[in-house]
């Protein structure tokens, strides 16, 4: 959104990045021996990302489009640091956090309150920051007095709302969103979309993976299309969505 104005200030640089996964075909000693005797290959490689280039400027919010298995999620995992590229460079500026991991760090035996602190800390926040935002987090999740209950007694909707609320209140510069917007009921989904829009307008750099056209159009001005681990289109969102549908 702020691409047109101001000097170029990249937040994310991805250059010639490759990520290869080794697929094991042998799962037991017997398999190994049998394929060895028949001279079949024991493993094959799969190039999830195959020389991918991308620059995202500060304040941009871009949609990462592509069909299943095109490498979108792998790209976000490289950006968040969970995985390392096999080749090329990934550089990020500022604090990167993802809405990929909603609820991953929740401990069922702890209360909602304890889980808020634990998860915010997992996402990289310090005690003071969490204390300052605690009320906002609980208010956004709309779970009221249940906050002191153990999380295992929560309904799945309540659980996701609290998890999402923690993730969205992390102090960050780059936000990675991966298919988590199907959280909770319709009113809460609308509220989440609004909050994301607010963050985008506030100048947070955003990368959104989603299959929902409306949502992507709403949030992003630019779209990239990934196919077989490469960027095949990079431009305005409407054109990107058209390119996506071409075979």
């Amino acid at each position, binding site marked *: 959104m702020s691409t047109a104005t101001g*000097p*170029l*200030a*990249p937040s994310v*640089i991805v*250059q*010639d990045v490759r990520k290869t*996964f080794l697929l094991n075909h042998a799962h037991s000693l017997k398999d190994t021996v049998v394929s060895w005797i028949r001279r079949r290959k024991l493993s094959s490689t799969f190039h999830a990302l*195959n*020389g991918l*280039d991308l*620059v995202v400027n500060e304040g941009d919010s871009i949609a990462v489009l592509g069909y299943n298995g095109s490498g979108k999620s792998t790209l976000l*995992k*490289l*950006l*968040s*640091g*969970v*995985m*390392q590229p096999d080749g090329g*460079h*990934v*550089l*990020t*500026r500022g604090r*990167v956090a*993802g809405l*990929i*991991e909603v609820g*991953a*760090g929740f*401990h069922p*035996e*702890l209360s909602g309150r*304890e889980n808020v*602190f*634990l998860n915010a*800390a*997992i*996402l*990289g926040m*310090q*005690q003071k920051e969490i204390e300052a935002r605690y009320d906002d987090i609980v208010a956004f999740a709309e779970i009221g007095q249940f906050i002191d209950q153990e999380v295992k007694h929560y309904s799945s909707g309540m659980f996701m709302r609290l998890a999402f609320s923690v993730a969205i209140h992390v102090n960050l510069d780059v936000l990675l969103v991966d298919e988590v917007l199907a959280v909770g009921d319709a009113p809460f989904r609308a509220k989440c979309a609004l909050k994301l829009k607010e963050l985008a307008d506030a100048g947070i750099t955003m990368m959104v993976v989603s299959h929902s056209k409306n949502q992507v159009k709403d949030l992003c001005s630019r779209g990239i299309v990934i196919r077989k681990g*490469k960027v095949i289109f990079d431009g305005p969102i409407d054109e990107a969505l058209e390119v996506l549908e071409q075979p």
Partner: protein
Amino acid sequence: MSSEPDLSARGRVASDLFANVPRSAFDTPGRSRGLLDVIRWRYLLKLLVRTGVTTRYRNSVLGWTWSYVRPAMQFLVFWLVMGVFMRLGHDIPNYPVYLFSGIIGINFFSEAFGNATRSIVGNAPLVRKVYLPRQLFSVSAVIVALVHFLPQVGLLLVVCLFMGWIGSITVWSVLAFLAGVVILAMVAFGAGLFFGAVNVRFRDAEPIVELLLMLVTWASPVLYFWTMVRDAFSALPWLTELYLINPITVAVELFHLAFWEPVSRTGIADLGLQLHPDLGWLTLWAFLISLATILIGQLVFRRLEGRFAQDL
């Protein structure tokens, strides 16, 4: 995949990228700085330890009593079999104190080492999805074990107090105890890093560690006196040396020096028993070996941690 002009174009873009923002403003995501990261993330470490401690005995009626029941049971069995049936209680004065001070040391080590080994695989959902310094899990596993070790030390102290420990305690006893704890924690952490990292790819690490933990009770002077090893290996003195160089052996002997020796001086003199005369040197060696264990653990862990997310 790319032709000549494409490469040159990319090169041009790359230099332009840093025109407004210097290269130094960028980070490479997921680059670990090992233990330094743990210090920077100490607030999360605190929460992880608290979670580990408080959720340990949730939903159990006896709760923390289990921290006493297990070592008490172990103690009873060993005392009955080794002390009474095998008559070791006649050869070693205050055998129950001797036995218990060794058992709690081994228990601490087993728990710390075992927890650290399982810590990465046990936190798989987090390791797969969020980047955070992975050593945090190993460090917190050792600290949680330390917290569970404290009530057992308390129990031992109460017994020792009844036996007049306070009158014969020296600064050395306290230092010996602390040195023993530090050695055990260091070895458990280093070995836990190593096996925890290997465990991600090869789950064989867990049964191997269980095997090692089974051996460790017998490979250090918990049930018997160290001189029995020396006498048995009198033809092969290097075996005794090897036995004594084991940091766990040294830590157990330090515990004996701290708790058992002060309350048993008269009995020790009567029977002509003596803890190893060069325990000071052995302690120094044990520290060096523990340090080496941590270094090796760090090396292997940091080599493998880049692949944790995809191997889990």
